[in-house]
């Protein structure tokens, strides 16, 4: 089997808590005194893949980081089953939501298996050592991402696409009902992007997990997301089902992009084709 073909092992995990509701309620996020996001509210659909798209600097990464409590909110709340996550112990939050940051760095020399095992961090403690649950979660995550073949290799020795699959395996092993991924496909070949998004969509649909993914490639987002959130200038301009949001008008107003939007007759999903001025 070629390395980059994902196998069809079922991902369905045991012990995953049912997907909670996730709401962003009127948050303000700032770096120093400069507000990046102000008065933003958003409902995330449970058990679905939501893609956040928008031009560079629109605040999509900032929103994701605030939802994942990596950034503090100055006002408002991120509500997980109606509990504000910024008030919860970070270890408890980590049992419910996982985060794959943008361009993550592996400790030098760490092996694939060891990195994936880090995903079990919130489920372990000084007293509670490595258990069968841990081993199962790691094995399942590695099977789902098809990385068993290089389990014992150091991360530095892998290609970009393989490395990203290892990171995804790590957050899958965390066995959380909510996953945040910040540009997991940027800088990868289109084929690799398609493989990764296929995997992420299966995680959402087969496991019933809630995925929120910040993305760059518009057509890949439109092909794989269930829900789209379009942002500009720190605000949500449009949100909803892909076919309702991915329109010529929205692309123009959010991205300043003149493009035709066509329907792919096979998938029934919209595709944008940028207009080239002569």
């Amino acid at each position, binding site marked *: 089997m070629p390395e980059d073909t994902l196998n069809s092992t079922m991902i369905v995990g045991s012990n995953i808590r049912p997907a909670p509701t996730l709401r962003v309620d009127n948050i303000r996020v700032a770096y120093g005194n400069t507000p990046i996001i102000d008065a933003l509210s958003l409902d995330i659909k449970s058990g679905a893949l939501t893609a956040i798209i928008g031009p560079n600097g629109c605040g999509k990464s900032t929103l994701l980081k605030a939802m994942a409590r990596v950034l503090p909110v100055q006002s408002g709340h991120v509500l997980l089953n109606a509990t504000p996550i910024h008030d919860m112990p*970070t270890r408890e939050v980590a049992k419910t939501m996982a985060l794959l940051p943008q361009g993550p760095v592996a400790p030098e020399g760490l092996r694939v298996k060891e990195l994936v095992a880090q995903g079990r961090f919130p489920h372990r403690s000084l007293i509670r050592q490595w258990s069968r649950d841990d081993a199962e979660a790691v094995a399942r995550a590695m099977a789902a991402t098809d990385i068993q073949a290089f389990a014992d290799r150091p991360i530095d020795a892998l290609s970009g696409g393989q490395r990203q699959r290892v990171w995804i395996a790590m957050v899958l092993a*965390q066995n959380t009902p909510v996953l945040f991924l910040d540009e997991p496909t940027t800088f990868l070949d289109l084929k690799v992007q398609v493989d990764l998004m296929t995997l992420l969509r299966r995680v959402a649909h087969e496991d019933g997990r809630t995925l929120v993914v910040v993305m760059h490639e518009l057509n890949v987002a439109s092909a794989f997301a269930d829900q789209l959130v379009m942002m500009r200038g720190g605000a949500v301009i449009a949100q909803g089902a892909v076919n309702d949001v991915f329109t010529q008008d929205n692309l123009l107003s959010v991205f300043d992009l003149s493009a035709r939007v066509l329907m792919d007759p096979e998938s029934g999903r919209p595709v944008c084709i940028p207009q080239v001025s002569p």
Partner: protein
Amino acid sequence: MTGMRAGVFLFAIPGLAFVFAWHIAVGAKVIPLRTVVEALVAYDETLFDHVVIRDLRVPRALIGAAAGAGLAVAGALMQGVTRNPLADPGLLGLLAGASFLVVLGSFAGLSAPSAIPALAAVGALGAAALVWGIASAVPGGATPMTLVLAGAAVTAFLAALTAIMLLLDETSFDSLRVWLTGTLAGTRGATEIWAVAWLALGLTVALSASRQVTALAMGDDAATGLGVNVQKLRLAILLSVVALTASAVALVGPMGFVGLVVPHIVRLTVGHDYRLIVPGAALGGAIFMLLADIAARMLLAPVEISTGLITALVGAPFFVWLVRARL
């Protein structure tokens, strides 16, 4: 894999026991290993060799092992938390800060056994803050290189101030002058008890935080996502590094390069998980320090040279290799 790597400890522990016995055997008069073992297991106070072993050589070996363990664990933590392969209590100025304040304390009449590790801790913390501040103010921020350069500048400056204080009163600071080169010779009485208490504090924090250090090595965001309280962990690690450095300085003076060399060698054998690196560095640091002290007493025997000179002779080329290979 982890099991196999943990197996390294099966060799390291007897290794430490052997080096410990060997270290005791070496000295002005070489004592056969057999006598060393006898003195340790069946002490006979009528035998002169046994008395020498118990009163002079065992304390020296224990001090060396403790200081080596402390410095190596401090270096490993600094390298892990800052993602900087060149982090080391010596290179980043902590040793100079600690010894400067100890000498300043002696100058001001503060040389009670309990005061020395405390002064060393305050000095290490102050120097660390100074080095971090200078490196952060440089365009480009605190990179491994700017940190090492700032560390060199702060070390040179504090060493000059220390030298001035020593010149002011040559005779009474004679023992401090030897101590400042890093030595296991000459005990400082009750200071050791206090230093070992600081060491125990530092090691306890280091061991209990080791699991989180591996997560933190993946970056702040990823660590937070895994449930690490990054601010709290950083503070705990800083406390641990300062306590370990202070205890080592109180025991043997500013012994350079131990914290740089040992963690890198330990990583080659146990991998990159800090749950193994921290205990591995403690063992490795003890072995390294005892070997350095054996060399210090054997190379130019019967003349004994400062152990710190040996660690520098080994560490400086290692540092050059690290810069070439890792930066």
